């Protein structure tokens, strides 16, 4: 069961390592000076994963009602979606 | 009435209603001057009528707040008022100061009034809503301090509830932010910047604490819902008020010379300002739906619910309508602002004071609720005043929209006065709604004199 796994001491550490790795990935993309639609979407996807990891595992929302996880996910979808839309508008 | 000293509230409430009537009469004069420009000129020029109209509003609301707190604090604190005598002295001082000031406005040219009252020592007069002569301003500070002192001392010696705490904080803020009315630099931008620390931080900040506390008190009394629940939500609502309202001040800083970033800060946070009002509406209706008792004072329940709805419409919705900087660029300083001002002040503050009076006055007169016939009359007055004020706001909104179009958006903008001629039909309609409002108010006053079998205490 995922719940048992989550309660083990190692699990948060794994999440933390994933977050660190994703941060480094984001940073590297920035350092490489990459830009464009694909890069932007990749960065947003990474950000989505990171934010939801924090919400579900650090904030421990995975154990709560669907409503609360939906709010955190919906929040990112709306904000991230609008950011992507604005970015694409700026490409013209 | 549980505590003898609560009786002082009666004086304050009577004065509040009297001044309210005065405010409306001057409002009607101004409304007519909008369409018949030389009405009562030069006896009462528009600027004088307006000063009386707005100052009476502020003063009667303050009387209402004071009366309300002298009534509810002893009950909340479960002890007699610290000093009823001080409350009575304060009342007469404030009433005399208010009356002399209004007479000064009406009988003396404003420039002479300024000269005679020491405006040369410290320039504070002649700014919107802060037209009071220096001695009156000092008087307001002293009255507010005496009020605060009396209330805080009462709270300290008795039970400390969330309601009395929030009310005291609101009063403290009221007194503190009024001090900025003494700061009037020559630099017009700074003058306006800190002028809003009085005006905005009053009506969209600390006054809302007072409003929330008063509404919470009445709701506990008429619904019998558990105090814990009400107070919890009181805290949440006023938290949202401060979270949105303080930075929301920025919506006044768009076009007065302050840096451009206020357009963002002000827009974002003031766009959230309707949230606490919406919460208040939902909260009030929920409390009434979950009521554990049928309070005989049905009129008070109606006023309380009306407050929550009209506050949301006037302060929340009508404020939101023109708070975003790109919209406000065109609507700033038009009749739209007037529409919002009327509906918000009536919906939030006039109504909450009337709610409090409606609940407390029967008790002060020795009964739980007024006779049925009096209550029906009171409810009629509620609907007449509320609907006519709503129409005043609608007509002014119409006037504002046309004004924005003709004067600012049109490719061939018309001059201000030419536009005013074009929209006079809205002003006539507004004046008609104003007359209905006056009828509603007279009915309200009449309801106090209706006799019949009143409800005794349970």
């Amino acid at each position: 069961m995922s719940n048992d796994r989550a309660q083990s001491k190692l699990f948060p550490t794994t999440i933390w390592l994933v977050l660190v790795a994703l941060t480094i990935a984001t940073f590297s993309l920035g350092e490489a000076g990459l830009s464009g639609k694909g890069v932007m979407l990749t960065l947003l996807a990474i950000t989505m994963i990171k934010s939801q990891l924090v919400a579900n595992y650090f904030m421990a929302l995975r154990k709560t009602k669907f409503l609360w996880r939906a709010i955190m996910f919906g929040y990112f979808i709306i904000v991230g979606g609008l950011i992507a839309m604005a970015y694409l508008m700026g490409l013209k | 009435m549980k505590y003898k000293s609560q009786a002082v509230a009666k004086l304050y409430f009577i004065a509040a209603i009297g001044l309210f009537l005065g405010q409306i009469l001057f409002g009607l004069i101004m409304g007519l001057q909008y369409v018949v420009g030389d009405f009562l000129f030069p006896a009462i020029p528009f600027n004088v009528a307006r000063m009386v109209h707005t100052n009476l509003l502020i003063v009667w609301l303050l009387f209402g707040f004071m009366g309300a707190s002298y009534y509810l604090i002893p009950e909340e604190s479960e002890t007699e008022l610290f000093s009823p005598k001080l409350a009575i002295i304060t009342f007469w001082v404030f009433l005399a100061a208010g009356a002399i000031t209004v007479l000064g406005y009406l009988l003396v040219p404003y420039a002479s009034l300024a000269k005679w009252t020491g405006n040369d020592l410290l320039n504070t007069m002649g700014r919107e809503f802060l037209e009071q002569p220096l001695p009156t301003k000092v008087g307001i500070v002293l009255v507010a301090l005496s009020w605060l002192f009396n209330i805080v001392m009462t709270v300290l010696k008795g039970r400390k509830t969330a309601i009395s705490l929030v009310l005291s904080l609101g009063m403290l803020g009221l007194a503190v932010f009024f001090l900025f009315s003494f700061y009037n630099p020559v630099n017009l931008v700074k003058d306006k910047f800190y002028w809003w620390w009085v005006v905005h931080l009053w009506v969209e900040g600390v006054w809302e604490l007072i409003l929330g506390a008063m509404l919470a008190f009445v709701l506990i009394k008429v619904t019998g819902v558990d105090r814990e629940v009400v107070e919890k939500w009181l805290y949440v609502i006023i938290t949202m008020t401060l979270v949105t309202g303080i930075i929301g001040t920025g919506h006044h800083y768009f076009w007065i010379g302050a840096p451009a970033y206020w357009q963002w800060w002000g827009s974002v946070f003031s766009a959230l300002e309707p949230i606490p009002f919406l919460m208040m509406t939902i909260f009030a209706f929920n409390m009434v739906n979950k009521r554990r008792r049928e309070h005989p004072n049905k009129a008070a329940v109606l006023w309380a619910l009306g407050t929550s709805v009209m506050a949301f419409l006037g302060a929340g919705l009508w404020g939101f309508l023109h708070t975003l900087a790109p919209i406000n660029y065109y609507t700033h300083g038009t009749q739209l602002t007037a529409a919002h001002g009327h509906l918000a002040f009536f919906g939030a503050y006039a109504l909450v004071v009337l709610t409090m009076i409606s609940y407390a006055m029967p008790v002060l007169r020795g009964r739980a609720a007024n006779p049925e016939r009096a209550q029906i009359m009171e409810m009629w007055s509620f609907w007449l005043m509320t609907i006519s004020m709503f129409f005043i706001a609608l007509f002014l909104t119409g006037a504002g929209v046309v004004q924005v179009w003709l004067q600012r958006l049109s490719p061939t903008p018309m001059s201000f006065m030419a536009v005013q001629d074009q929209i006079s039909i809205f002003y006539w309609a507004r004046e008609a709604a104003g007359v209905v409002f006056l009828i509603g108010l007279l009915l309200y006053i009449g309801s106090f004199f209706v006799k019949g079998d009143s409800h005794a205490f349970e």
Partner: protein
Amino acid sequence: MSATFTKSMARNVFYGGGVFFFLLFLALTFDTMKVLPKRDNSQNITPAVAHGKKLWETNNCIGCHTLLGEGAYFAPELGNVYTRRGPDFIKAWIKGQPTGVPGRRQMPQFNLSDADIDDVVAFLKYASEINTNKWPPNIEG
């Protein structure tokens, strides 16, 4: 919905949130005061402007007019009247009141001296040169 929702925490959040946003407001105010000299035309505040502002106030002009959009909405915006009408028109206008045209809105006669009127004009000129982020949208105010 959380089962825990306590009054004491609601109170703490109220205090914390209130103080937090007031401090943020103070920080923004601090920055505003630093930036203001570049925008508020204060370098052009002369004794005439100061006296003009005082006359503006002690004759309660704000009771009918707006200034930078604030005030009463009974009479025209005066923040940009200097550019709209120019000094001579303003002086003649103030002296010529009231017009006495039946049914029209009337401006009182304030009995100002020529020197006073010059100061009022100086104040209006100063006000018209404040950086208002391009408000009003057009010259009509």
